[in-house]
């Protein structure tokens, strides 16, 4: 089964639109949604949570169409962290826990308390006095404490320092090590997603440009660095993106399959691949 399925989804507002977006996240996997600010990541997530209604197309979460009446029950199975804070300002962590206990049928108070300790979140501090990092930690603690099968995370690691981010990535890995647990996570910190994800989906100006298994994407390309002369010897179909540097150097993203086997290429990062692909598109 697919944890998430979008098929030919369109949504327009103002001068921005999501165009013909089709994306699946198979159960048991982690999909990283990447793209620059305004590419449509948060819109996609809001459409999935039915906080926004699509103009056309189908969306389903854990096998249930978001327009179906049963979708309300699905929300029990989905842990959501959005990029904006949404707890009432005057509440503290203990009060948030009480509200969640009456919202979620499978709320685990002991687990929640464990996360508060682990994240060193103060119990009596009011939410309005929270830092960005504390807000994200509280939202993640809530999302993980009601026995979800799917986590939907919008910039959940933004504003956290490297050490805490790694700790949280570790929690996400623990989460998917349980059978049938899946994650859709958006982030602009590509190195985090490169460490975590099985699939990478890249949105650019409302369109899905890349949707692919992460390791296959990394295997397909190599980074070339050399002189203009060496670069000219490459076949045109081997070049996916190119950057001419000062002092005669050329850096290029190369399709390994079309490049000579003896050519020495560096292993790219997801960030390299995305930057070259976007630049290539602008040049075209």
């Amino acid at each position, binding site marked *: 089964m697919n944890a998430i399925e979008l098929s030919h989804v369109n949504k327009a507002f103002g001068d921005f639109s999501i165009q013909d977006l089709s994306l699946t996240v198979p159960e048991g996997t982690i999909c990283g949604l990447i793209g620059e600010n305004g590419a449509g990541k948060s819109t996609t997530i809001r459409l999935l949570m039915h906080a926004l209604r699509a103009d056309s197309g189908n969306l389903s979460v854990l096998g249930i169409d978001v327009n179906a009446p049963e979708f309300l029950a699905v929300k029990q199975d989905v842990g959501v962290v959005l990029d904006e804070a949404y707890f009432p300002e005057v509440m503290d962590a203990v009060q948030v826990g009480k509200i969640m206990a009456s919202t979620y049928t499978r709320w685990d108070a002991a687990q929640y308390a464990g996360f508060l300790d682990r994240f060193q979140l103060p119990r009596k501090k009011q939410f309005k006095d929270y830092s960005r990092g504390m807000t994200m930690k509280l939202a993640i603690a809530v999302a993980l404490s009601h026995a979800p099968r799917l986590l939907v995370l919008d910039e959940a690691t933004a504003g956290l320092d490297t050490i805490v981010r790694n700790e949280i990535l570790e929690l996400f890995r623990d989460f998917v*090590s349980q059978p049938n647990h899946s994650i859709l996570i958006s982030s602009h910190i590509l190195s985090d997603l490169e460490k975590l994800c099985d699939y990478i989906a890249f949105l650019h100006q409302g369109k899905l440009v890349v949707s692919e298994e992460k*390791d296959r994407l990394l295997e397909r390309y*190599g980074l070339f660095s050399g002189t203009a002369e060496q670069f000219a010897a490459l076949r045109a179909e081997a070049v996916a993106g190119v950057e001419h540097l000062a002092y005669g150097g050329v850096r290029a993203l190369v399709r390994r399959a079309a490049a000579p086997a003896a050519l020495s290429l560096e292993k790219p990062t997801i960030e390299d691949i995305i930057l070259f692909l976007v630049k290539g598109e602008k040049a075209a």
Partner: protein
Amino acid sequence: MEIIIRNFDNQPIYEQIANQIKAMILSGQLSPGDALPSIRALARDLKISVITTKRAYDELEAEGFLSTVAGKGSFVAEKDLRLVREGQLRQLEAHLEQARALAARCGLSLQETLDMARLIFEEELQ
């Protein structure tokens, strides 16, 4: 069981895993019937993608090194290792024949070719 993933290696991760498990089976470090970690556990422990881990196991299974029992996990298969070794030796012979032909084309003597081989072997040892 020891598996080392090198991120800066140009060899795909699934190949790194498959080759290391294969080497452990061929060297007798893993014996037929030994249980391997589940795909999810291995992916988690190595901090890599489950899909990539599954690809490594699928490849090992296709080559007859592993067998997977639904609901129980993956095990080192009963495989005639002499046959595997035999196959690998034939491969080695074929590669050496290619190397000999290349050496001849470059006008390298046997001694020069052996010197080159020695260098490669010593590099690997370091």
